[in-house]
């Protein structure tokens, strides 16, 4: 099954759509602390944008063009969130205590109010978006006849029988009792 679509319009516009979706998702991420939004929702949106990209350009190419392995970035996000939570404990405050910084005037932007919750949210954002991307890539690849993992990933993630689903389903069961 070919995963790409042949519509010229979609192919031409996907870059723009990808950009727009991600602008909205970063906006959601930044407003998240005091208003509806935040790392989780932003992360889901970014994940969706990658799914769109994969549907249009093909999963092979998407995987090739990802700058970093998604699972590493996801672990890094989790680590960032945990460090933000843990750091106040070193100063004898409660886990997840937040510190705020209010600047009355920053050139070009104006009034800025930032705090450590933003770091936590960025961690969650990375975690959610990267896990989504990873899950969808693995699923989409194995249902479209491609091996789920690239050769470089196999020693890290793949179990013994990993392969395109249709293919292994027809093989005899190697672990028959």
């Amino acid at each position, binding site marked *: 099954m070919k995963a790409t679509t042949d519509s010229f319009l979609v192919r031409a516009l996907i870059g723009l759509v990808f950009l727009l979706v991600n602008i909205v998702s970063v906006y959601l991420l930044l407003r998240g602390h005091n208003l509806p939004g935040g790392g989780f929702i932003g992360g889901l949106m970014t994940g969706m944008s990658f799914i769109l990209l994969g549907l249009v350009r093909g999963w092979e190419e998407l995987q090739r063009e990802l700058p970093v392995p998604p699972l590493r970035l996801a*672990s890094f996000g989790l680590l960032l969130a945990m460090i933000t939570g843990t750091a106040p404990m070193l100063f004898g405050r409660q886990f997840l205590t937040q510190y705020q910084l209010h600047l009355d005037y920053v050139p070009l932007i104006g009034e800025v109010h930032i705090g450590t919750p933003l770091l936590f949210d960025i961690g969650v954002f990375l975690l959610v978006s990267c896990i989504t991307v990873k899950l969808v890539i693995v699923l989409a690849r194995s249902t479209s006849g491609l091996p789920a993992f690239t050769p470089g990933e196999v020693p890290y993630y793949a179990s013994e029988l990993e392969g395109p689903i249709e293919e292994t389903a027809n093989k005899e069961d190697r672990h028959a009792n």
Partner: protein
Amino acid sequence: MNNLLVLPFLLPVLTAVICCLFVGRPGVGRRVFIAISAAAQCALAFYLAVRAFHEPPLVLLMGGWAPPLGVVLVVDGLAAIMLCLSTVVALACILFSYAEIPVWAEQPLRLPLMQLLVAGINLSFLTGDLFNLFVAFEIMLVASYALLTLEANDRHIKEAFPYLAVNMFGSALFLVAAGLAYSVFGTLNLADISRRAEAMQGDFGVMVVAVLLVVVFGIKAGVFPLYYWLPNSYPILPFSLGAFYSGMLTKVGIYVLLRTFGTVFPHNLTQLYTALAWLAGLTMVLAVLGAVSRNFIRGILSFHIVSQIGYMILAIGFFTPLAIAACIFYVIHHIIVKSSLFLIGGTAMFYNRTDNLARMGGLLKASPILATCFIIQAFSLAGVPPLSGFWGKYAIILVGLEEHRYWLVVAALVASVLTLVSMLKIWMGAFWQKLPADGTADPEAPAAARTMTAIVCALTLISLAIGFGAEFFFGIAQTAATSLLDPAQYREAVFSLTGKGGQ
């Protein structure tokens, strides 16, 4: 300032993340690191338990936000007991998995995921907030889905599917229940819910929330009409993980049932208790019949989990202080015994290269120590005095007689006898009979099997200590039950702390 309370959750998460980020490949160094971390979690849990039993419940306001706005972590007696058990079993299973699989064959994500599973389980014991409990369940379940299918082949994945479907349904229902609880009580903080539920006793909304939560936690615990996902999915796990799943996952359901009935809801939901008790009776008998019908070790033991869950739910259904204490004692006994039986099965499989009873045999001669451990744990599970299972069952049946619930008592006794029958089935198949002609056996006991036997022996010793020191452990269970059944104490501990956004 009780920042220590977050560590039982934080340490496993950090361990998992560090493993994923910096040591992606399995190796001896990584194994040592994870073992040290697991031992540290264990020590921390025992330290918290000592403090929880000598002080009022320990509370941590996360981020310094006062309840009911902020999320609180609470450790009281019961939570501390559960933390100790989960970390001890996790340590045993991690060490066992080192012996079970050589370094080169280890799945790289297995131990990090196991640590995330521990983190989710610990968080669900710690939390004092309904939505946070949902999050903890999700962490636990996502890790367990991944672990269940990580090393599975196609047929195993088919067995994992009901587990996934039923638990996702349960999670969705939990979310609905949490939303409903918020609309009925206007809060998700457990202490605050208990305060408001007490004021609105007899309200229909309280009953609806309670019933929904019972269904959700019943699915997690594996109570009668909702248990069929369990007995077929657990046998696909490797033994070391199966031991942890069978010990801890369903017991999280029991813990939250105890917590919601003991601390959160007013103690007058009599119809619900009665319904639970009858469901528990059915669970015990039907599941033990399933166990008798199976012919491989993992299958028999998996059905037994459900059957034993029946005893704990039965104790919750009786809902007297003694019954709750018996339930807590039973949980302590059950987690250790059930995990060690799974690990004994794993060692037996190591000797025979299969756990199909028709093709096993000769283990009594091959490893008398293992056989001794098995017979002790099997009798303990069935409830033969003076082993640990006897005291739990004795107390539960005593309460049943006091309450004149004779049919349920009969069900409990029948289930005990059938438990013994199915345990003897394993004994005859794996240990007593000679190795059949088509069976395989490793004639030389390698070093790995010796390590496994040592771990099993340690767990058996703990279980013997519970049996012979029943007075001490029952005392602990009673202390925990008393504080569990005293919502006022819990509320006071939670609301006595001041923080940002307080009332």
